[in-house]
């Protein structure tokens, strides 16, 4: 196998060796080039390294600035930041907590994930294993088309079209399964569907293309000899998928779902347009209203003027940042061992 093949066939994330190989080359070259002092090389090296550093610095700065802007407000907070559901920054006295925002954010994102994961898995299998080769490409574009729809349009559709349309379903769920906390009466009216349930469904639709595209790539990399081996042993198509494609792509699929979860946690405008504001605390029901971290911040954005009230929202933003940071780090650590094996 030529080196080119090796480089090309190596999946992303496995390039450390290539990197060190090339690095080694660079070193030799530098040693030789030491005397003439290739200025161009050194300038270029610094330039690219600085650009890489910009990204590292950006993340550090995001955490740092959000923190220093949030701390004064957190110190001035007259209630418990973690357990209070009110978010009152008006009238001079700060009393804000993130309980309800956390509940609404997590409930809507998890609902979206539960709905989107099996469907995305199905789509990825359909596109890579089941769909006729000639059509798979076109079908793939269709799913990608969903990703081309901006979230503000999803918000419009969710609140003006989908919400009213699935209101009867919500009423039925509420009436039939109301004894179960997740489906009990919420703190906003069911009319119009401005609740977590609708938001979760819309988020699920937004996650489909994200989870599908990553999962599809992983499934496509299933070793062909494993697939052919399974088929040669007399496995049916489903048995082949279950014994080769799914075990091979499992970690990639979970990592993709975590990436989707991170996206859902931070989704702003669609959720802001859909959810009705609530005046009482959340009861952990899908039929609650309220706001997520992101939608709360966006809804108050026009009133950012005084440092202390603004800091309260920045504190909420900091929590969201940490939440997505953790979710993405987990996604990465799940995806990584798989890549090393491949």
């Amino acid at each position, binding site marked *: 196998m030529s080196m080119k093949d090796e480089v090309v066939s190596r999946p992303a994330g496995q390039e450390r060796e290539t990197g060190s190989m090339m690095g080694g080359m660079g070193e030799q070259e530098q040693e030789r080039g030491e005397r003439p002092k290739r200025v161009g090389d050194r300038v270029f090296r610094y330039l690219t390294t600085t650009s890489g550093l910009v990204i590292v610095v950006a993340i550090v700065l995001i955490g740092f600035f959000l923190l220093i802007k949030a701390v004064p407000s957190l110190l001035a907070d007259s209630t418990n930041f973690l357990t209070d559901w009110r978010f009152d920054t008006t009238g001079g006295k700060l009393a804000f907590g993130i309980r309800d925002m956390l509940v609404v954010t997590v409930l809507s994102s998890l609902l979206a994930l539960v709905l989107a994961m099996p469907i995305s898995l199905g789509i990825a299998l359909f596109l890579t294993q089941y769909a006729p080769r000639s059509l798979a490409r076109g079908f793939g574009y269709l799913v990608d088309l969903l990703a081309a729809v901006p979230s503000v349009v999803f918000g419009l*559709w969710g609140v003006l079209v989908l919400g009213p349309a699935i209101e009867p379903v919500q009423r039925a769920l509420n009436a039939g399964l109301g004894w179960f906390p997740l489906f009990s009466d919420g703190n906003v009216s069911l009319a119009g569907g401005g609740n977590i349930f609708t938001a979760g469904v819309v988020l699920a639709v937004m996650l489909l293309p994200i989870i599908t595209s990553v999962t599809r790539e992983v499934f496509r990399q299933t070793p062909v000899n494993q697939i052919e081996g399974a088929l040669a042993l007399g496995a049916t198509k489903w048995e082949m998928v279950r014994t080769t494609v799914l075990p091979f792509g499992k970690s990639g699929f979970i990592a993709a779902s975590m990436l989707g979860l991170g996206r859902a946690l931070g989704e702003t405008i669609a959720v802001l347009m859909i959810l009705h504001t609530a005046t009482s605390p959340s009861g952990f029901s899908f039929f609650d209203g309220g706001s997520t971290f992101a939608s709360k911040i966006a809804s108050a954005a026009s009133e950012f003027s005084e440092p202390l009230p603004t800091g309260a929202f920045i504190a909420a933003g900091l929590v969201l940042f940490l939440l997505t940071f953790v979710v993405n780090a987990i996604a990465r650590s799940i995806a990584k061992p798989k890549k090393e094996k491949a």
Partner: protein
Amino acid sequence: MTTTELERPARPPVFHHLSTGRKARNHLATVLVSLAFLIALVPLVWLLATVVIKGWRALVSPDWFTHSLKGVLPDQFAGGIYHALYGSLAQALVCAVIAVPIGILAAIYLVEYGRGWLARLTTFMVDILSGVPSIVAALFIFALWISTFGLEQSAFAVSLALVLLMLPVVVRSCEEMLRLVPQELREASYALGIPKWKTIVRVVLPTALSGIVTGSMLALARVLGETAPVLVLVGYSQSINFNIFDGNMTSLPLFIYNQFTNPTAAGQLRIWGAALTLILLVMLFNLIATVISRFSAIKTK
């Protein structure tokens, strides 16, 4: 003896019929998997049909692409999205001008130079940055630009927030493209005694150029639809503003969000018209990206 057995053509009893259970499970899986795809098409078709049916009339009105909403009353069927279209494109282009060079250089660092802890940290941070929610990026620019430096809200602040969202996408796609460049090309260049930086600039980058352009267009398409930064970092304006450093500037998402609170029929037509325009704009950028990549993919042979 075995050979004679093998020479005989296989007869039906050799291949056992599948048991009903296995057959049923296989069919069930096929049905479920196809169903999943069909389920995904429902919201897609539903959403696109809604937007087209409710919005096409706005797009064919003569003033839509040539006039702003200056002096137009909320319930008046007049004016257009000229100012918002300009705002969207201006903010996205300024963002691209900053993000694309940094992104390409960072990708070159990761592919050609990066090793050791710094490269690993950078890769990790690119992943984290790609997961940063747009509202957090907007808040950060607010905390830095407006609350610390004391500058006014402006379209440029929006562009800066968009840079944070665009950078990781550019780095990722650019990195992938650079890794596809055959190693022989680099070696051939080194063998001719050409310095590494010149090899990268004159050999590696041109080879990967089309892929990089495609990736940047896709990143641009994603940034066009971002709404959170414009809510936090710039004000709404009814009329055109060409200056990205000063004053309010409307972009398409902000236009939609603002008209969303306008309950009149004219407002409804405007939001769906703007939504259709935005989708078409994003699709146009995606299409350009696809065409570029189709016409000049890296020759891996």
